[in-house]
């Protein structure tokens, strides 16, 4: 028998989870109506119908219901389509095709613009880095600035004040040492 429960995107219906014996009979009848009941299911249904008056009543009602639906579904009873429906539908389809065509053109245009923008950006970046490299490689004779002099003066002051070093004396000591080494050699 094909009966099985599965939850999916629809979500579970409370009716799907709880099945009492009466429900079982109506479920099997529903399956039989659609030609989906196997031999085991048929035997089970026969047993239920033999034992259960409610199940037999459901069987009769289901037969009537399906007859009524068949009559209603009959071509003679189907509602006529409104006049001009085909023309309106074809016009709508044509409009949708035009809209798709326009969208396609806009897409191609925007892709082209994006490519052009990317090319311009790449060219600009290339030119920038090339210029930057040239500036960096250009040898510039760097002269001491006011900041350099201030920094040198500050360093001398700090060494003198905290290290007890006399920068000027260091410089003259270094000169004397060179002189004495020279006279000793002589």
């Amino acid at each position, binding site marked *: 028998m094909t009966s099985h429960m599965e939850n999916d995107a629809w979500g579970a219906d409370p009716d799907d989870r709880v099945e009492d014996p009466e429900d079982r009979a109506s479920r099997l009848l529903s399956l039989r109506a659609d030609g989906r009941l196997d031999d085991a299911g048929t035997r089970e249904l026969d047993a239920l119908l033999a034992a259960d008056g409610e199940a037999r009543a459901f069987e009769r009602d289901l037969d009537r219901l399906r007859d009524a639906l068949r009559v209603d579904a009959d071509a003679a009873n189907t509602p006529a389509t409104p006049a001009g429906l085909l023309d309106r539908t074809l016009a709508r*389809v044509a409009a949708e095709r035009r809209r798709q065509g326009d969208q396609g053109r806009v897409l191609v245009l925007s892709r082209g613009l994006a490519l052009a923008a990317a090319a311009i950006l790449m060219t600009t970046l290339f030119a920038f880095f090339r210029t930057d490299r040239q500036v960096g490689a250009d040898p510039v004779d760097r002269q001491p600035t006011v900041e350099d002099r201030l920094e040198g003066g500050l360093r001398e002051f700090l060494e003198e004040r905290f290290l007890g070093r006399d920068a000027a004396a260091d410089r003259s000591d270094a000169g004397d040492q060179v002189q004495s080494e020279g006279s000793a050699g002589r």
Partner: protein
Amino acid sequence: MDETQDDRELVVRAKDGSEEAFNDLVRLYHERIYRIALRIVHDPDEADEITQETFARAVAALDRFDFRAKFYTWIVSIARNAAFDALRSMQRRSRYKSAEDGLDRFEGEGGGDPVQASSASEAKQVIQKALGRLSVRDRTLIVLREYESLQYDEIAKVMGCSVGTVESGLHRARKRLRQYLTALAPSGAPGGGS
């Protein structure tokens, strides 16, 4: 519904860009799509709009149709989505108070004198009213199975669910339809004694 070789060739040509082939498919299926839409939404104007929308969506998505399902099943699944979207929109606009409101218009379309109505048309009205009381999901299942004679696997594809869910859903829908018909039918029996 069996898909003929001609249908398949039309679909192949339409996918290759033949506008005439797609227009032939529209000619072939628009009436059936309209009837399905009408039975789901019970509003002729909305069914008209859904039919147009269905084929507009189909022409936009035709590249993605891969022949895993029949073309008819595929187009019915688009119609079902369009119908559900329309119902949501109708509810938002508060035009859709209940399916029976639209049903009255649908029944009025056929003309005829209600006093002279035959028992067959009375039975039809009872059936339509009972269908209108079903939830949209249950009604769609009944329409696809009983009116369009789709197989369970085709219904599952249309509804985007499993075959097991179709089976449970049809069972539930029939039980509820039986209850409504018993309450509505003059004779107290489903189908109004037709």
